[in-house]
């Protein structure tokens, strides 16, 4: 999205919105890149330089012999902006493939999070009970704290965070989304 103040758009030579849909959409992109120095900076620099949103970004090498990494990127914008993001990503030389998982079919999206919850008495018991309901694992424990590990969709993790907050949530780490298409076919 271009950073234009409301109101200036209708008279602006930079108004890019009038002929396109104004509805913002959330898309998950899978970007396969050569794992060479600076490649992540190129991707992130594109988003900051052109004013696009990044809601979540995860990256790791998935092919150690071929030095290929997979970046899973959640972004939002109007359809025109999403198309532009994909085209601009495609221009980066070490980017091999850009897939819009949101339009290519059903996907599974998962995120992992670690929660540190500190408390005693009923709150501590309640935290443990809720963790069980959310299928979170206890990966560290003291007499006054737990560290929970939870995997799920970003919504599920948001919901768990809301419940843990009043029960003594002190620290939270999230990995960002990893996503794959459903079904037997490998799209990438």
């Amino acid at each position: 999205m271009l950073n234009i103040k409301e109101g200036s758009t209708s008279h602006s030579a930079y108004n890019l919105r009038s002929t396109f849909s104004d509805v913002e959409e959330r898309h998950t992109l899978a970007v396969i890149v050569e794992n060479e120095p600076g490649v992540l900076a190129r991707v992130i620099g594109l988003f900051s330089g052109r004013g696009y949103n990044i809601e979540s970004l995860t990256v790791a090498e998935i092919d150690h012999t071929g030095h290929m990494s997979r970046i899973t990127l959640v972004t939002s914008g109007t359809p025109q902006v999403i198309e532009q993001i994909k085209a601009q990503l495609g221009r980066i030389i070490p980017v091999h493939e850009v897939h819009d998982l949101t339009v290519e079919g059903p996907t599974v999206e998962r995120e992992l999070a670690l929660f540190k919850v500190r408390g005693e008495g009923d709150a501590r018991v309640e935290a443990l009970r809720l963790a069980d309901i959310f299928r979170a694992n206890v990966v560290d424990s003291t007499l006054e704290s737990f560290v929970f590990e939870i995997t799920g969709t970003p919504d599920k993790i948001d919901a768990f965070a809301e419940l843990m907050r009043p029960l003594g949530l002190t620290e939270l780490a999230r990995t960002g989304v990893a996503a794959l298409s459903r079904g037997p076919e490998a799209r990438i």
Partner: protein
Amino acid sequence: MTGQTQTPPTGGQMTGAKMVVQALRDQGVDTVFGYPGGAVLPIYDELFQQNDIRHVLVRHEQGAIHAAEGYARSTGKPGVAIVTSGPGATNAVTGLTDALLDSIPIVVLSGQVPTFMIGSDAFQEADTVGITRPCTKHNWLVKETDALGQTLHEAFHVATAGRPGPVLVDIPKDVQFATGQYGGKETRSTRYNPPVKGDAAAIAALAQAMETAKRPVFYTGGGVINSGPEASKLLRDLVAATGFPITSTLMGLGAYPASGEQWLGMLGMHGLYEANMAMHGCDLMICIGARFDDRITGRIDAFSPNSIRAHIDIDPSSLNKVIRTDIPIIGDVASVLGDLMEAWSARGRKTDREALSQWQARIGEWRAKDCLSFRNSETVIKPQYALQRLEALTKDRDRYITTEVGQHQMWAAQYLGFEAPNRWMTSGGLGTMGYGFPASIGVQMAHPGSLVINVAGEASWLMNMQEMGTAAQYRLPVKQFILNNERLGMVRQWQELLHGERYSQSWSEALPDFVKLAEAFGAKGIRCSDPAQLDDAIMEMLDYDGPVIFDCLVEKHENCFPMIPSGKAHNEMLMGEVSTAHAIEAGGAVLV
């Protein structure tokens, strides 16, 4: 090409510095522009010991990049520049950005501190690949000599393939000294290969749209020139065969000849009335290698409201970026135009001749407005008149034009005619004042026997005036045609239209005596302020075999028209000596 070029073993073990020179040779590079420094000394040592590649010593690294751009734009080959680490590389940033926005293929080699000192804030260290990442098409930091040759060849490929652009290879000094394996030109990885052939169905759809169009127009840009001479030829054939009118962006001038029957002139903010009105009124717009820049479109929501738009571009990100396209065609201009001609011919080469002649009549009415007319003077040289005379006295010569940025640039685009591609070098996208003079040096190096004129304003010209040293050293007969109004003319014009005639910092105080300045560098200086003597003075400039600074004292308050004010549409042009008060509304005032 000398005998040395053919001496076989291009491969084998050699130092990184030798590899640089060998790779340049293998790429057919005959000229490099540069400036030595600590981190490129090994490369300069190798350059010293050979005669295949000429090195042009500029006076500032920005000049090296613009000179390489001028070389590239006028030859179609990639331009090459060598700069040292730290300040050498940061001085290259403006030129790299300029080349990125205008899609000019250049390869910049920068020195870097030794690999073991990177990150230590060493003397003349800068994060060159970090700084130049957003202003290059791609860049590399080479950490091993074994990888250097392959990277250099990959760099030339990336710079020239697909949509061209600048690349930079950062070479630490220890990599230049160390010995490694060099494998020749074939060692580059072959992955980056943007498709050049357009989609047949989309091309067929365009051919069909051409048959029924009642008010068609070709809108062409720098992509036609980047695609090569074949693209210009195919464009001319297509225009001649269809009889469709054609306009072009600033970057595309020369692809279709200015003397051509269907030529409407340049379009856009300072484009011709007939060109902009044709764009506004057309029912089929065929955009070829242009990118709907904001200087072209004016107000987006009023841009060409009733047209079907076809867009041919090699860069997928150009399509639907600003203006929604009905018929998008991704591919190289020459390839697509060849296929389009074939598809349209196979369908019987039909057009709606009756509608077309009505359309031409309409355009004739717009043309009759004579939007470039101006009130001439017998006492003071009008800048438009100066360019008219320059055109009249040079148009039949083997001529190349470069420009700086501002009013003079727009007047040059309006009043000079370009009959062939690669003859017009100007900073379009970035609008870099100081571009034209070093670019003229690059052009002259590539075309030693041709007439090279830099149409300049005095303020722009001063930004890279140090290159007089380069012009003098290499005896380059570049003609610096300075329209001197002692103002930053375009800034002054906007202040007049937009900021209540408060001329904040837009005059050129303490200007040098340009004649004496020329003489100080051993060049020729000419001053002219009398319209009656202008022709003789221009002839004197043309007849002099060497660099000339022509100080053409022109009307100080002339404004550049026609003009589409910011935030207005194509059919809302200002035509000149009219009241310009409130021409730009508050909404447009925030724009540049």
